[in-house]
Structure formats: structure tokens, C-alpha cells
């Protein structure tokens, strides 16, 4: 009798302990899947986390499942499949190519997961969304506006460096967004009265051909293309070596040696996209959340490159500039 009683008490105690442990166990954290194709885009993840914290989230209550791929469509697709199979609550795709692959995979698997793309140049033109205000489907996110900004960047470049007479536009013919951006830039050049020379960039940039193309008074402007982004350092080296100013989009490009850059930084894009991730986590439908344009577009200039190239710059335009230094992060 005593042994049975003691056994019952021990069982009851253990059961109570188990119940109490279960009761006070935190709820399952919400899971955010992350898909990105190159490590330079990891700044977006940092920005995303910062943005979520700013909105009042506790990062311990969130779980990030990140998949990084080599810049090959096959590796990206494989990771996209794994991410979709992971049954995350929300997916964040860190670029246009990632978003396109993800859309394809979800379509194939017939598994639609709310997705926030962070930094897509032309989501509507690519067909990821039907409308900025009412995106439809499972995608919403942040358009970096780089396609349309191609016109503005061209304008800012020639306003900032008045001595430039012709712009060589680096683009990738096989990439939709790049091709569209070229078209926008061409139209802007016509409005601005400056001649432009498109230069296709394939798997790798043919610097010899580019050098052959180059003339005095030329400037180079990169158009959206992950292939071009992947050769940032070589382009920067070429710019300094040839003494030709280059207009890019991102802060890291300017830090690498581009003279100018106009666009939204990966980090800021991540911070901004946190709002949409938050809205999805709160239960909104992606189709109800408008696709946003960047809150912050910065005009970067590399002071070091400026000195090296020794180019004249418009003093009024300098008011808009955010100076950076070579390989050293943001300047003062």
C-alpha cells in the first residue's frame, strides 16, 4: 500500500511538473524564411532584423531560416524548393532573381507562402505583381525602383559631372530588368540631350572590349543586373585605371571605387521591408499590402575616387550627396 501510494505521488508530481513545463513553454516562434543569391545581400537580413526590432518585435520570438545560393539558377532553385518545403510563415526573397525562382517553385509545388521581396527592380514588369497598390497573389514587397531610377541616375550623373559627354550603359541583354532599364535610360538620355552607348555584360565583363569602346569624356553607368553587380570590384578597378567615372546604385559599389551611386542600400531595404513582413505576420494578406518604393534613396559619392579621378562636380548637387570612402564604410 505504501509503495503504491509513493508511486502514485511520484507519478502525480512528474505529471504536474510536465504540465507546468508545457504551460509555461513559449509559443512556437514564427518562422521567416530567407532566400538570397549572394553574400553581399546579407545586409538586407541585418536591416530586416533591425527593422523588426524597431517595430517592437523580439527576435527571440522569430526564427529565421536562411538559404544562400551561388549565383546560379540551379542552386537558387534547389534552395527555393527546400525553403518552400520548410513550411515557414513568411518568405523574404532578397532580389529579383530570387523572387522569380521562388515564384516558379511555388507554382510548381502549388504551395503558396506569403512572400516579401526585398529590392526588386521592376516587379510589375517582370510579372510578379499585377499592381503596386493591389499586388494580388502571394507577393508583396519593396521595389528598389532601379529600372525607373535609371533615368534619374542618368540625370544626376550628368548634373553632377557636367564634363561628361557620353554615357556607356552597362547592361545584360539576357536579363529582363536590365533590358528594360536600358530602355528607360535611353529615353531619359534623349530628354536630357546626351548620347549613350549600351554595352552588354554577359557571364563576365569583357573589359578589353569596354576599353576599346571608351572615349574621352565618357562616363559609365551600370544598369540593374546581378551579373554586373557580381563584378563590382573589377568595374571599380577598371574605372580607376581608366580614369572614367562610374555611376552605380548601391553604397557598397561606391565603397568599392565607383564615383557615384544612387539608390537604396541593401540594409535600408531590409529595414523598410520589415514593415511588410510585420504586416504579414499580423495576418494581413499579401494582396492587400501595397508594394512599396524605397523610403530612402541616397546619392553616394566616393571621396577617394573623386580625388583620384579629379573630376569637376556641381556644387549644388553636392548638397544631395552622401560622401563615402574607399573600402571604409560611410564617410562623414
Amino acid at each position, binding site marked *: *500500500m505504501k509503495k503504491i*501510494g509513493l508511486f*502514485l*505521488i511520484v*507519478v*502525480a*508530481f512528474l*505529471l*504536474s511538473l510536465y*504540465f*507546468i513545463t508545457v*504551460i*509555461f513553454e513559449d509559443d512556437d516562434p514564427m518562422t521567416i524564411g530567407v532566400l538570397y543569391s549572394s553574400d553581399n545581400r546579407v545586409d538586407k537580413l541585418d536591416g530586416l532584423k533591425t527593422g523588426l526590432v524597431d*517595430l*517592437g*518585435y523580439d527576435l527571440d520570438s522569430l526564427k529565421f531560416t536562411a538559404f544562400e545560393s551561388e549565383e546560379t539558377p540551379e542552386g537558387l532553385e534547389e534552395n527555393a524548393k527546400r525553403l518552400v518545403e520548410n513550411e515557414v510563415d513568411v518568405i523574404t526573397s532578397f532580389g529579383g532573381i530570387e523572387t522569380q525562382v521562388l515564384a516558379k517553385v511555388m507554382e510548381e509545388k502549388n504551395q503558396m507562402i506569403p512572400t516579401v521581396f526585398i529590392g526588386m527592380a521592376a516587379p510589375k514588369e517582370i510579372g510578379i505583381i499585377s*499592381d*503596386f*497598390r*493591389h499586388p494580388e497573389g502571394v507577393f508583396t514587397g519593396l*521595389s528598389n*525602383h532601379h529600372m*525607373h*531610377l535609371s*533615368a*534619374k541616375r542618368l*540625370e544626376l550623373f550628368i548634373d553632377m559631372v557636367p564634363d561628361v559627354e557620353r554615357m556607356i550603359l552597362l547592361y545584360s541583354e539576357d536579363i529582363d530588368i536590365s533590358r528594360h532599364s536600358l530602355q528607360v535610360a535611353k529615353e*531619359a538620355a534623349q*530628354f*536630357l540631350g546626351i548620347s549613350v552607348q549600351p554595352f552588354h555584360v554577359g557571364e563576365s565583363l569583357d573589359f578589353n572590349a569596354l576599353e576599346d569602346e571608351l572615349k574621352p569624356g565618357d562616363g559609365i553607368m551600370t544598369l540593374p543586373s546581378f551579373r554586373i553587380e557580381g563584378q563590382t570590384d573589377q568595374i571599380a578597378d577598371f574605372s580607376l585605371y581608366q580614369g572614367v567615372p562610374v555611376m552605380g546604385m548601391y553604397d557598397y559599389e561606391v565603397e568599392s571605387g565607383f564615383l557615384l551611386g544612387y539608390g537604396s542600400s541593401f540594409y535600408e531595404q531590409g529595414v*523598410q521591408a*520589415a*514593415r*511588410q513582413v*510585420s*504586416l504579414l505576420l*499580423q*495576418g*494581413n*494578406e499579401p494582396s*492587400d*499590402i*501595397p*508594394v*512599396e*518604393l524605397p*523610403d*530612402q*534613396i541616397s*546619392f553616394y559619392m566616393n571621396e577617394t575616387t573623386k580625388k583620384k579621378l579629379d573630376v569637376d562636380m556641381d*556644387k*549644388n*548637387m*553636392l*548638397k*544631395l*550627396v*552622401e560622401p563615402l570612402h574607399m573600402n571604409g564604410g560611410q564617410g562623414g
Partner: protein
Amino acid sequence: MKQKLHSIRYKVLLFGLIMSSIPLVLISGYYLLVMSSQVEDTAAQSQKLRVESVASSISDHVNHIFERMEIVGNSVATLEDTGVYYDLLNQQESIDEIVLLNDTGDVLRRVSRFNLNDTNAEPWLDDQSLLNELKGDQIDHIFSGVKFNEYGQPYVHLLVPVSEDFANALGVKLHLQKLIGDVSSHYLDGDSVMYLRDQDERIIAHQDYSKLWQIDDGQLSSDNTGIITTAPIEELNWELAMEQPRSDMLSPVYGMLTRGGLVAAAMILFGSVISIYAGLYFVKPIEKLQSGMRYVKTGYWPDEMPVERRDEFGELTRAFNEMNKEIQQKERSLEQEKERLSIVVNSMEAGLAVIRKDYSIAWMNPTLKGWIGERSEVPCFQMFSDHNDSPCYSCPLSETTFEKMDETLTKTDENGEQRIYRHRVFPLQHTLEEGEEALVVMEDITEEKRLEEKLIQTDKLSALGRMASSFAHEVNNPLASVQVYAEDLTDRLEEDREELLDSGDMDHYLHVIRKNIHRCKEITANLLNFSRQSSWKITTFSVEDVMNESLMLMEHNLKKHGIKVTVKVGDHLPPLDGDPLKTSQVFVNLLQNAIDAMSDQADPQMMIFMEKVTEGVAISVKDNGSGIPEEYIPKLFDPFFTSKPTGQGTGLGLSVCYGIVEQMNGTLEVDSEQGKGTTFKVVLPKSRSIND
């Protein structure tokens, strides 16, 4: 089942469950009440602070832009310089575009963040009234309603006058994407929502994007029972609101309640198991004892129960075992006693009956049944006589105070012989049936009475024997006188007959002779009377007369021993009920004892007192004889006990006296001091015919 629920096991378990749950429930309830109120207040304050903070942030932002625009607008000289615009664009990230407008709304200068700085693009203002209002009312600034660009991004136009004459205006296109996004995506718990209403009551920011751009007609609230806090954004005539459903507000309490409830349930489970164990631990020995008691109740004596504990239950089990053993022993004793009693009752010669208050017979023993037959239905007073219509005269059942009764009654048996029965009634304190009041004991004392009569007679004959010589002397003396006078008379008749007749001596002789003959007759009559064998005859008599007759019987003996007798008689002695002959026998015995006791006394004196007492009459016979040794006194009234020399006493005298006095409901006491004398005191009750 109902009986089970009343069992101590279920009560203990129920008690355990109640004690495990009620305190927890009460404490939880108390804290829930207290916490609900506090949480509600705190949530309301927190919500107010939150809304005011966000609203203030928006106000400050817009206000700051207006201030910057006014500064720029007042610097007319620099308006041609694009650096001013770029500087403003750089400082204010929410400005998409800055324009300088003339009084007709044409764009004089344009600096855009996203688009080309094309001054010839489509009209910047789609509503000229805004500009007119700014100019007409000469106000510091003005703003448009919320509009959308080609990408669906919301924005507003802000306008400030450029110069004092209001000729030109500086306008900015302020995008609301970040503002709306910040408000909408602000992390809020549960179903709480924060939203922004413009001046047209249109929702321009909301946690639930499906509600965006709708007119707030009051139907958008998710829970009208919650708290709605608003804060104005006066710069744009907007209003920021936050709704927090009561359920969300109390969600920490509910969470705490849920968790607390589950913890309480776990605790109750734990407590219940302990209670069940404790209950069984405590109840088990009780149930074992109860089982043992049931066995005892059914007449089966259980084996000795094992004592497994050292606590009170162990003590109780041990006590039960001892009690069990003791009860078994007592029951065996009781059975034996019962058997003995049954044998005694069934075999005793006395008849026994238990009588109820209404005189009906509850039980009677075989002896009584043998006497009266199976007549248990008759009242007790008709057991011996069908003619008795009422209870006995002195029946204690009729009395308020119940005392035992002891009387004799007679019944003629089937042989026509009259039998004497002693009829006693004893009150019963503990009875088997309700209403049983008394035990009637009927004893056939016919033989006893006869024996007693014989003893009395024997004693009387003994007394007569002892008095025989006295009688002879007593009779002899007058007879001698008669002889002398007769002889003398004969002689004188022969000598001188005539003179004897004439002188009158003849008469004198005859008178003396008659007197002595009368004396003889009286003596013999007394003797005959005393010696007569008679049964009890109750009459009313004078104790004084009986004493005088007794003294006369003993007169010779008293004289012979030279005893001086003093008789003192009190006034107004009441008559007594009883047998005067038997009473005389008592007195004769007492006188004889006194004479015997004073045989060696030089100056023997006897004092006889008769006085009236409450009960009746007290008769004391006191002598100054040798007294009675103290050790003899307890045996004094025993039959055949005597301290007299052999041949002087039969040992029946005092025993017979005691029997006679007791039969007359009187008392006989002795007070003796060796060497000084003895006093016998007889108290006899007065006649019932005398009223006090």
C-alpha cells in the same frame, strides 16, 4: 451508492479535493479580480501614451517640414539655386519632390527624387483651389488631401507662400508610405489596431490593410467593448486612433488565468493524488475496523487484526483486538450467567413475573405458570383471584414513588387447601421492553408459615415448660388456702354448726375459698390462653393489656428471683393491629430473657417502658443483668442460637420474637453492655384505623 457517498472514505476524498481546489480557486479568483482592474488601467494608460507618442512623432515630422519649407520659401534670393532644393531633399527623406510654383500653378523649378526634373511635365497641382486658398486666405501653409502616384504610393502636397505678396509658392510632394507603413506595421498585441484618419474620415493607415482607404463610419472597430484612444495631428487635421479590445487588454490576465488554471489543475491533480493516498491511508484502518465491527455485529468473532502501525490507528486496532477479546469473554460469561439464571429462574420455587405499568403481565416463569396456568392476559392483581377488580392496596405501581412491596396473600388451591404466598414487588431499573416496571415475586410460604407456627408453638411450649413449676406454685398456694379453710370449716361444722352460721364466719370461709378458687381459675385460664395453639389472628388490641397479662404469667418467676419490676406507661398509647397472643409471646420471651440474665444479680431490677412513638408504640424491656457479649449480638436473632446453659434455652425465643415482630411490620432492637444490662426495644405500628 448514496450510502457509499456517506462513507468516511468518500468524505475524506471529497474533503481532500475541496481542500486542494478551493484555496487555489479562491486565490486565483482574488488575483484575477485585482489584476483585471490594474491591467485594464495600465493598458489604457499605456495605449494613451503610445498613441500620443506616435501622433506627436507625426506632428513633429510634418511641422518640421513646414518649418523647413517656410525657411526656404522666405529665402527668395536662393530660390534660383538648386542647392537649396537638394539640401531640403537630402534632409527630408519623405519628400519626393520640391517645386516652385507661380501664382497660376505652373512649375518654375522642380527637383525630384525619383523622376527627371522636368518642369514641363503634367501640371503639378491637379486642384488649383489649393493654391488659391493659400493665396486668398494668406495663410502660412496649406496641405492637400491624400493622393496616389502612378505606383499607388500615397502622398500629400504641402504648400507654403514664397514671399509676402504670395506671388509664388513652394510645394513639396510628401510621400506617406513610410508614415503609413510605420503606423500600420507597428507591432501590437492581439487584435489591437492603430489607424490614421485624414480630414475626410478616411482610413489612411491601418493594421488591417483591407480597411485602408475606407471611410470610418464607426463600423470598422473590431470590438466596441474595448478602449478607443485618439490623438489629433493638428498640422494635417488628421487623427490617430488606437483600439484595443477588452479581450486583448485582459489577455495578460487571461493568459495568467489560463496558465494559472492549468497550474492549479496540475496542483489539484497532485494534491488530489496526495489526498486520495492520504485518504486511503487514513480510511483503510477505519474500514478494517468497520469490517471487524460488522463481523462482530453479525455474531462472528473476527480473528485478531494485525497491528501494522505505531500511530493512533495502531493503538485503535490494538484496543479493538482487546475489546474484541474482552467482549468474547464477557459474552461467554453472560451466556453462562444466562444459563445459570435460566436454570435458577426455571427451577426456583418462587413464581416470577414482570409487570407493566398497566398491570399486564409481560413475562412469567414456569413456576408461576404452574400456579396460575397460562393466564398471562389477566392483570397481575387477578393472578390469584378473579374477584379482585383493583390493584392491591399497597401496590407500588399505583404509587408515585415506586418502592418495593412485601405482603402476603392467600389462595385456595385446586385441592381446597389454603396456601399462603409472599407477594413482593420490586421496581425494575433496566427493562427489555418499554413499559416494564416491576418484578413480582410470589413465594409459596405455606410450609414456611407452618414451620414458623410450629417454632412459635415449640417456643411457647418451651416457655410453658419453664413456667410449669411457677404455675404449680401459683396454683398450689390458693389451693392450700382452700384446703386449710375447707378443713377448718369442716371442723367447725362438726363442733358448733349454729354458731358458725350465726357469727357469719361461714360466709367468711366460703368467701376466702371462692376467692382462692377464682385465683386458680384465673391462673389456669392465662396459662391455657398462652399455651393455646392458634394461627395468626389480626385484631386491634391494647399493648398495655397484653403486657399486663404477660407480667401476670411471669409473676411467680419474677417474685422467685426477687426481681423488682417497674412499669412505666406513657399517655395515650394507640391501639395496635396484630395478634395479641403472639405479642404476648414476644413479651414473655423478653421477660424470661431478662429474668435469666439477672439470675446472678444481687439486686435484680427490671424496667418496662411503653411509650407512644411516631410509628406506633415502643416497648422497652430493660434489665441490669449480665449483658450480652458483643460478638453474640449479630447472631442473637438466629434460630437455635443461645448463650444459656444447656437445658435452660432452646435458642428459639429471640428468633421467634423477631419473626413475630417482623410479621407485624415492627422492629426489634437490642442494646446491651456486658456487665451492665440489656435493653430490648420493640416498636410496633399503630393500628391503621387510627388517623394521626
